[in-house]
């Protein structure tokens, strides 16, 4: 089992990164670090997908010299999924950063707990 993890070292690393990113996004109090965590998490998934598309000793999926044989090229599907995923993650990152800017302008803090405390106070008064 451990040896299997070593063979699949790319996937192992991807999963460790996913765990780190997930925890950062869930539990870190600083908004910028939360966003970093989100990016780490997404990137880990793309690394995992890219590793899944790879086949030893094969070419990238672009037709060269007119060879049209499935055993000559790698799997093109994961690459396409990664492309789509990257755009999604860029969009969400931009949105969250913009939200963070507005929150910072208003509450002068990046700490989510303190922002929420201040929101609470604003509401009470």
């Amino acid at each position, binding site marked *: 089992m451990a040896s299997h993890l070593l063979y699949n070292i790319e996937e192992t690393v991807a999963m460790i990164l996913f765990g780190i990113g997930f925890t950062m996004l*869930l539990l870190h109090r600083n908004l910028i670090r939360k966003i970093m965590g989100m990016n780490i*998490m997404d990137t880990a998934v793309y690394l995992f997908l890219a590793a899944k598309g790879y086949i030893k000793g094969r070419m990238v999926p672009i037709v060269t010299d007119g060879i049209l044989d499935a055993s000559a090229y790698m799997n093109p599907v994961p690459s396409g999924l990664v492309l*789509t995923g990257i755009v*999604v993650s860029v969009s969400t990152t931009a*949105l969250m950063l913009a939200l963070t800017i*507005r*929150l910072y302008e208003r509450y002068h803090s990046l700490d*989510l707990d303190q922002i929420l405390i201040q929101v609470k106070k604003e509401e009470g008064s």
Partner: protein
Amino acid sequence: MLVQNFPFFSIVLAMFSGILSSVLNGKQARNVSLGVIGSTIIMSAAVFFWCLGNGESYTYMMGHFPAPWGNEIRAGVLEGLTALLFSVIMLLSVLGGMRHTFEDVEPSKVNLFFIMIDLMLSSLLALIYTNDLFTAYVFVEINTIAGCGLIMIRQKGRSFSAAIRYMIMSQLGSGLFLIGLTLLYDVTGHLLMSPAKETVASIEAAGRYEIPMLVILAVISVGLAIKSGLYPFHSWIPYTYGYATPTASAILSGLVSKGYIFLLMKIFYRVLGQENVIASRMVNVLFLFGLAGMIMGSVHAILEEDTRRMIAYSSVAQIGYIYMGIGLGTESGMVAAVFHMFTHSATKALLFISAVGLYEVSGEKKDFRSLRGAGYRNRLAGVGFTVGALSMVGFPMLSGFISKLLFATSALQSPHKMMLTLIGLAVSTVLNAIYFLRLVITLYGRAEQVAVKGKQRCSFVFGGAIVCFILLNLFLGLMSQPVVRAITEGLEMFD
């Protein structure tokens, strides 16, 4: 057949109107949006009746390539019915909150609000009709971002903090859903639902990849449960629903979370195989979380002073009901869950919209004390709120009663979970009754001081929306048999 094109037309029309709205002004964008929602209602109804008449579902190729290669969407009775109800509720919510939309949103950004509405509609339709896992992921993201846009469009500090909490939780859910998807792709090699299901069946028959399949099931369920706000992951719900503009609250609580639940059901039936899901222990986990949500959501709602937050906490409880139905693991439990999904969408949107009418006549205050006697000041909103509250409690003739009845009868068929379900239903109903009836009594209580504004004539559109909502509720309550039959038929078509 032209009817078979309608699911595709409705999705693309909604997206196209969203794109077009970015160059229109607010009023034009509103008209475009209403037109699109209206035509979606007609097209969904046509799809529903066509499928019901023919007794079969069909897949629709998005492009020139068949199933395992190209994208596909799929329409059947259940898809048509859900799309129909969702678009009706969307139309009524947009109409009911229209005046507040124009008050809450900056005038130069009203068209952006309607872009969100259009894309929200298209993503909901795509989640309903999709037959491809990765398409589902992309549209889940559109849904999330549009939802975030709807929350923060009020541009107040509270809405920003609510939006960021919503985004964080949603991104956690999306991340889990995406990793589940990639793991599933890794073991099956398919992204389309039908071929993936065949591969899953052969994998299960051969007894391979047992642990990955279990983890995939867990990760996808938890991811979508976070996004729909199942009990232990509900912390963002009260903030989100409580602070958004009324239309946004109604749409988010009524439709968005249901879209994810519908997707989860579709994945259970069409990819992982319902029998495999039942065989794994995951349904029991969903069942327990659902039960906990039913009770804890109601307890939180009782403790809440702010009535909008109270309604939001009640959503937590109602989503608990739906997951409990899924967790029962029987066909009838699933039917009850789907029916409750419809009930809750209709009722919760009604509650949010009519509550707004009550705040208007109480000086925009949202706590209990200011609402006293509001039912006399705005009679239609008062009646609407009462009907919604009674329906949530489970008053006969209203839709909530039927769904509770369905839950109870389906509980009788699963011996291991019968007692727990019945006790949970009883306790939750009592708790529901406590806070909703308290609110209704308050509404018709004697006002101590005269309200800030006197009687206010509510607008024609608002009144029409409330009346339609009440009729929808009565329809679901009185004419439940055809709906239940359609749901049963639709679930059979899923296999």
